[in-house]
């Protein structure tokens, strides 16, 4: 097999590694009998550097060795490369937002009381950074805790004209169907809890 030019071996090695390679590491690619000296390696890397001029890629030396990297003037063109996957908000954040929407003005302590767990500062900051929640006053109790409410941006995001358009708590209960004992009208549901409740209902009555 013909030996490819040294610079092409080094180029392929750096791109395959995807990271910086030291000169020692480059030497180790070759058998003992045919190991290029460091000046030769450096020469080949400088050749590569010239080949790469005006190509949107740089061959650079960093602390841990040499690597190929995207040229800085090319970076703005790649900004959208990774933007496709938005992160998701946590359950805790959504619950916090929901409680604020329905119970505003509400303090952090009150939200925690409803949710039964403490709320991280990060969540409150994220909601405010997003522009959905803001401090609308302070409750006149010791510590003067901030009271939070939702904003116009919040309504806009959810395509609401006013909070009135959110379902009432009663409608939400129907949505969740978590407490079937209230659904006395439908004793034949498959839910055993509902049946049990219906049973009790009749014997009680």
């Amino acid at each position, binding site marked *: 097999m013909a030996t490819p030019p040294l610079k092409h071996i080094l180029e*392929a090695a750096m*791109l*395959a*590694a*995807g990271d*910086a390679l030291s000169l020692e590491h480059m030497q180790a690619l070759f058998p003992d009998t045919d190991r290029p000296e460091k000046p030769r390696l450096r020469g080949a890397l400088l050749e590569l550097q010239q080949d790469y001029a005006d190509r949107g*890629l740089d061959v650079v030396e960093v602390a841990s060795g040499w*690597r*190929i*990297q*995207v040229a*800085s003037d090319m*970076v*703005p063109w*790649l*900004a*959208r490369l*990774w*933007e496709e996957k*938005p*992160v*998701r*908000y946590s*359950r805790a954040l*959504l*619950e916090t*937002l*929901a*409680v604020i*929407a*329905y119970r*505003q*003005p509400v303090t952090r302590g009150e939200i925690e009381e*409803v*949710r*039964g767990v403490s709320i991280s500062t990060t969540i409150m900051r994220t909601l405010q950074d*997003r522009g959905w929640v803001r401090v*609308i*006053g302070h*409750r*006149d109790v010791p510590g003067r805790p901030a*009271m939070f*409410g*939702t904003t116009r941006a919040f309504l806009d995001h959810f*395509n*609401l004209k*006013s*909070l*009135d358009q*959110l379902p*009432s*708590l*009663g409608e*939400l*209960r129907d*949505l*969740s169907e*978590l*407490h079937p004992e*209230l659904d006395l009208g439908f004793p034949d549901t498959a839910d055993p809890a509902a049946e049990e409740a219906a049973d009790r209902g009749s014997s009680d009555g």
Partner: protein
Amino acid sequence: MTVEHGIAGQEAVAAEESPSVVPGVRVGNEPLRELPRDLYIPPDALEVFLETFEGPLDLLLYLIRRQNLDILDIPIAAITRQYMGYVEVMKELRLELAAEYLVMAAVLAEIKSRMLLPRPVKVDEEEADPRAELVRRLQEYERYKTAAEDLDSLPRVGRDLQPATAMVPEMPREAPAPEVSLDDLLMALADVMARAEMFSHHHVQREVLSVRERMSWTLQQLDSEQFTDFRSLLRPEEGKRGVVVGFLAILELIREALLELVQAEPFAPIYVRARA
């Protein structure tokens, strides 16, 4: 000596030189005097060899291919005997013998017995060669066995090729803000309300959200330093309902001790201030 024994014998130099009793190997009650004659590998490699088979079809194919036989014209008696020989050895070596090997043994025995039966003079179209199904399965298996080898010889990532990666210096990642649907929000609330037992009978009430919203708005209009004219908090342009909502919001805020009202004298303007 039959023909295929002859072929096997030429290959089976190592087997011919093997000790006359295979240690520890018994077939039925008899110690196995000899490994099957058609084995051409040294007995100490036998276990490794047998474990390389991927199943009864693989073993049968090996027996057929080794003798350059046409898969369509299998000498069933000879192949069956050789197959049984290997299966016995596997059993005696206590190799983990999959049940499939025994099923195949039964299939072979059945084909053999059917081929021994005298054939009717007139061969019905329907009466297929009893080997047909076995041949079909063997060919089918061989196709995929070959396909697997082809697959293995395709260039693949990590062995024959490597995707090229360049570093990106300080990537400005524009992470878009997460999307939240109204359904997500409502489900979250339903959950939290269920946990908080907000739905139990005595808590169920019609939440007037417009009042809550107006409470937020009202608080934002107020200042704890100076008084605001009460009337500026009610907006006649919203109609009767709007004024009522605004009024209820103020009452609710007073009840929650969030604001205070001041009126200097009867019928004088009412002023409102956030409680500091």
